[in-house]
């Protein structure tokens, strides 16, 4: 019995030493949540890789003073609201200092409420639904643009450049895609464009022949596709060309992905897409790009750059204040005004960082900047 007590005590002492040792080495825990599996895995992995690249760049720059290492906790939300909340809880247990994510607005919104209760800052690189930053949350930031701005640009392009008289819309019923399509429908109708129809498909559908036959019968000038996913967009583009739809096709930021061109090939030629303006000449963008390819990831997806910027800005805030206190991070983020990789990083009081949507076009197998809404002319 005595032996047992001695052993237990020794064990407890050794354990406490180990724990104390662990406490000395200070790590900065970085969390991300995005759909790493499931239909949105392409965009989700782009986001996680963007964060990885940001951490690598920070480490190249000498790391974060006061922290021995930066640990990355990528979580899979599968674009499912329930799993997003579970991921948020896991990240809270991992004691992360901030979270980059999520991808789908329908995941970001519930997860951000869980994180906000624990005062963990969340920076979304990809959720464009207006509600993300309109709920008065203390620690919610957004790197990308907003859908209400995106729809304004899309409609301005239809009326001013394409001079479209009528439009047909298809969305796939997510918080994001349907919200955006509804916005476009409303604004197009207000701008005097006749809405011939607004149909819904299901996420993950492969066969759009029936609904596209309807579009063809309606024969619109503009065909707006608001889908959650670029591979669905590619499939729809292929089938639209196949059934002989002549309309100008406009997609949105979720359809904007290199995958669109690699799958749809010639069928994607001439498609227009709304996406934030990214100046690839910025020095931080070049740094990001180099690190990204150095780490062996495929070409950056639509949201890799924004994820990089979000993580980089948050780590920069921690560097500046030297603490992981949420209010300190928030204060530093709010004061920030520097040239990020994708845009000028400057947050507004509600956490938005401003939209800069432009129209891009698929031309010769790649995306080109096509139409600038500010000047109203092509690049």
């Amino acid at each position, binding site marked *: 019995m005595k032996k047992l007590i001695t052993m237990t005590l020794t064990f407890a002492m050794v354990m406490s030493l180990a724990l104390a040792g662990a406490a000395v080495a200070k790590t900065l825990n970085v969390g991300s949540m995005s759909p*790493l*599996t*499931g*239909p949105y*895995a*392409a965009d989700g*992995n782009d986001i996680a890789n963007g964060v990885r690249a940001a951490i690598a760049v920070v480490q190249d720059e000498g790391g974060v003073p006061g922290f021995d290492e930066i640990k990355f906790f990528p979580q899979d939300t599968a674009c499912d609201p329930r799993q997003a909340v579970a991921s948020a809880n896991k990240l809270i247990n991992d004691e992360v200092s901030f979270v980059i994510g999520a991808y789908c607005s329908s995941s970001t919104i519930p997860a951000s409420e869980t994180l906000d209760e624990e005062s963990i800052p969340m920076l979304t690189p990809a959720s464009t639904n207006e509600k993300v930053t309109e709920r008065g949350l203390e620690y919610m930031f957004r790197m990308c643009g907003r859908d209400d701005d995106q729809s304004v640009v899309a409609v301005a392009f239809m009326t001013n450049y394409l001079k479209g008289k009528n439009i047909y819309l298809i969305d796939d*019923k997510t918080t994001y895609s349907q919200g955006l399509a509804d916005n476009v429908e409303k604004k197009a109708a207000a701008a005097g464009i006749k809405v011939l129809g607004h*149909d*819904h*498909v*299901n996420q*993950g559908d*492969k*066969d*759009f*022949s*029936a*609904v596209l*036959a*309807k579009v063809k*019968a309606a024969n619109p000038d503009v065909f707006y596709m608001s889908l959650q996913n670029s*591979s669905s967009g*590619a*499939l729809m583009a*292929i*089938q639209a060309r*196949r*059934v*002989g739809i002549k309309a100008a096709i406009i997609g949105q930021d979720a359809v904007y992905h290199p*995958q669109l061109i*690699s*799958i*749809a*090939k*010639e*069928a994607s030629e001439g498609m227009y897409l709304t996406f934030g303006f990214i100046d690839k000449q910025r020095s931080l963008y070049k740094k990001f790009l180099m690190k990204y390819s150095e780490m062996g990831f495929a070409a950056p997806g639509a949201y890799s750059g924004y994820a990089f910027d979000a993580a980089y800005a948050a780590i920069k805030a921690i560097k500046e204040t030297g603490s992981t206190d949420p209010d300190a991070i928030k204060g530093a983020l709010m004061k920030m005004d520097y040239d990020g990789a994708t845009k000028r990083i400057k947050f507004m009081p509600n956490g938005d960082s401003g939209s800069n949507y432009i129209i891009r076009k698929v031309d010769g197998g790649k995306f080109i900047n096509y139409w600038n809404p500010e000047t109203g002319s092509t690049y």
Partner: protein
Amino acid sequence: MEFFIQQFINGLTLGGVYALIALGYTMVYGIIQLINFAHGEFFAAGGYMGVIILSFMASMGYMETHPWLCLMGSMALTMGYCAMLAMAVEKVAYKPLRFASRLSVLLSALGMSIFLQNGLMLTQGVYDKPYPTSFTDGGFSIGMVTMSYMQVMILVMTVLLLIGLNILVFRTKIGTAMRATAQDKVMSALVGINSNRIISTTFALGAGLAAAAGIMVGLYYGSVRYDMGFVPGIKAFAAAVLGGIGNITGAMIGGLIIGMVEIMAAGYLSSEYKDVWAFVILIGVLYFMPTGIMGENVDDTRV
């Protein structure tokens, strides 16, 4: 009217694909009374094997010189591969459970389905794989109705495969042995039929047809994804039940009906609810006509 004809053609194409997948369900059920939930995965594996072989052929430059030869060759190879995969799955997951309760085999099938799907995801990645298709583009129109060459090819291939299967099952020795095993395993064993080999062959045949459907779907839609087998698999299962599970002609008819209903519902009612109809039919059939269109009896021993 043109709209209707257009949707009719679309429905035939989709129905043909469902019919090819449904045959695998129905044949396996007919012979060992198992709903093989891993069957949709053979379809997905076929799609992937097709993209791998065709991409290789395209990189070697054969696609430019002999596109149709490449296509037929890759289809044959893919069907062969999936047939072997199915035989392996049968050996690993179902054969040891031949005398276990049916529920165990069903669970084993579900597990196999998840295993294969995740295997595809881990080995092939989560990104969509594009098919090297440019020669399948194009088509022709009569009036307002357009039909792509790919749709023609799917229809022709489906009809050929269905005729081939019918000849195999109803005119050859192995087909006779299959039908005999389906009717009574013990009796057929007594007259010298190796039932294990027949069961293996049945799995191989069903998976081969699913693989053909997979490669055609990949070509038609332009890409494959690791989870592509799930929804078509469930719909083909509904088609097999509708046609009368265990009955080969029934599966063909059921597939065509499910595809047609889905497309017509999307065209005339709402494309949001198009997936619902396959399952409405499934529930309706189970409730009002459990034997399906062609099924004569639901006796355990003879299906």
